[in-house]
């Protein structure tokens, strides 16, 4: 098969077809900062980020690892926290990641004041605006042939990260579902605005929606109520306004009898076009239960800690065996679960990408 551009390669997978070789989406967030030899305070503060450096994390890691699907910028998970009255923890130690030190909505009564500050304009909020400027720079530099994904979290995860933290949000869902719904809707609107802005800035490919609530933190019936509709709303916007597909990176074990039916619901009612499940789902399970059953593409996830600690041979075998089973027929990408670890050894990262391109070159037969 003739060599495809990275865009053609990823597009083939999104359509459930065979590309020339299986693409890699390494979900690089903080790892890119360390790859450039910086610490977090070099690139971001409580109130601003360095757009140039945010872009550089993408360009540098693409040059180093030659992976296929990129994000437009360095991002962390906590945009919105500071403008809404919270604070961030920005560690200066190698390997650390940004997180919320203080959430804006500590007590339910705080919401009345916090909601007055919404909606936030991603182009005006300096930490987010820097990532949009970076996406524009990255797009100008490599966007012709390289697919650039948009990324954010749907309602429950967005609200958890930006407003309130996990346990309070979950208790809200149980005790005050209407209140929870209001927060989740605000989180989703924030996600929609930011994702839209990323496409306007130069994202040109699939939208990756990351949900850490899934069935990791709540049971399937709650997931159906508190995750599914928000995913659908974003997927619809992305398709309608930008003609792009949505891949759901949702956490939790979907192989169980009570959770597996959600996969079908996410396809039919959530309008997702592909799944990026966590490491609990083997290549075999994904092939048999998603690709073959629903004709929907998937990614095979290597567990972040394994990518760190496995030998090069173990990584090679994991990739080889997984692709031999799942890749024939197409519709397969590879990903780490969750993001690439920020302290991943360089040679392990290389091995994972190179083995994917080696064993993932079509034609592949079982």
């Amino acid at each position, binding site marked *: 098969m003739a060599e495809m551009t990275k865009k053609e390669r990823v597009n083939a997978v999104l359509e459930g077809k065979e590309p020339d070789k299986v693409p890699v989406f390494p979900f690089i967030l903080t790892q890119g900062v360390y790859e450039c030899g910086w610490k977090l305070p070099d690139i971001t503060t409580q109130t601003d980020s360095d757009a140039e450096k945010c872009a550089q994390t993408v360009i540098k890691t693409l040059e180093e690892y030659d992976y296929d699907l990129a994000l437009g910028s360095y991002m962390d998970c906590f945009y919105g926290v500071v403008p809404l009255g919270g604070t961030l*923890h920005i*560690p200066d*130690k190698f*390997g*650390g990641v940004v*997180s*919320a030190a203080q959430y804006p909505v500590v007590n339910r009564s705080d919401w009345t004041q916090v909601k007055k500050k919404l909606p936030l304009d991603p182009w005006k909020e300096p930490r987010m605006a820097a990532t949009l400027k970076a996406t524009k720079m990255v797009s100008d530099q490599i966007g012709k042939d390289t697919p650039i994904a948009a990324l954010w979290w749907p309602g429950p995860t967005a609200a958890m990260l930006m407003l309130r933290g*996990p*346990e309070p949000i*979950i*208790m809200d*869902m*149980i005790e005050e579902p209407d209140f929870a719904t209001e927060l989740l809707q605000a989180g989703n609107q924030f996600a929609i605005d930011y994702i839209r802005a990323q496409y306007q800035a130069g994202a040109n490919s699939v939208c990756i929606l990351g949900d850490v609530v899934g*069935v990791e*933190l*709540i*049971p399937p019936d*709650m997931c159906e109520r508190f995750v599914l509709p928000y995913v659908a709303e974003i997927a619809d916007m992305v398709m309608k306004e930008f003609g792009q597909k949505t891949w759901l990176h949702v956490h939790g074990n979907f192989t*169980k009898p009570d959770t597996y039916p959600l996969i079908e619901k996410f396809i039919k009612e959530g309008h997702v076009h592909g799944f990026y499940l966590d490491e609990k789902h083997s290549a075999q399970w994904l092939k048999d239960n998603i690709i073959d059953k629903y004709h929907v593409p998937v990614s095979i996830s290597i567990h*972040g*800690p394994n990518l*760190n*600690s496995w030998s090069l041979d173990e990584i090679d075998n994991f990739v080889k065996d997984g692709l031999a089973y799942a890749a024939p027929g197409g519709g397969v990408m590879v990903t780490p679960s969750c993001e690439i*670890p*920020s*302290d991943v050894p360089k040679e392990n990262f290389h091995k994972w990408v190179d083995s994917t391109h080696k064993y993932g070159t079509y034609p592949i037969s079982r």
Partner: protein
Amino acid sequence: MFDFGELQQAIILGKGPLATELTQKAINEECVPKDILNQGLIAGMDVVGVKFKNGEYYLPQVLLAARAMKAAVVLLHPLIVSAGIQPIGTLVLGTVKGDLHDVGKNLVAMLFQGAGFNVIDLGVDVSSEKFVEAVRENKPDILGMSSLLTTSMREMQDVIQALQEAGLRDKVKIMVGGAPITQQFADKIGADAYALEGGTAVEMAKAMVN
């Protein structure tokens, strides 16, 4: 005669108001506080731990049960104190430095409280110095450390080292847990116990304090 099974069920189902109502009823009927605690509340939480371990319960059900128990214990507290009922052990617990994941740690804390332990929760991002200080001050039976990140799990070793240097290592049992932790890792760093999940952690801890 008071039906402890009913109180257990209220805890298992996370029915806070019912649990407090039944606890009050048990007090009014002059049940022995220790029985209310052990046969009603703790027995209910034991079932919750098992259901969580089996994947039958998710986090919200445990949160609700723990809240129900907490509310009932408030009523019972004065009687527990005057009856001189001691906790079955003390656990100092925290998520190690660099790690802010606390859902699992909080859940472990709830299950320990539910099992009758006194739990001193140091929170997240806890430094070795803080762990050492808490052990010196509270003299717990068990020091529990949680870590969900490969980047932070190595901190556990630093804590054990710091306890050694402070001459406190042999005064406390050390239990570790969290998604990336394995028995092999626990053995390597010299921890006394590793638990895959909260229910098992409690069972192991009970055996340790016995």
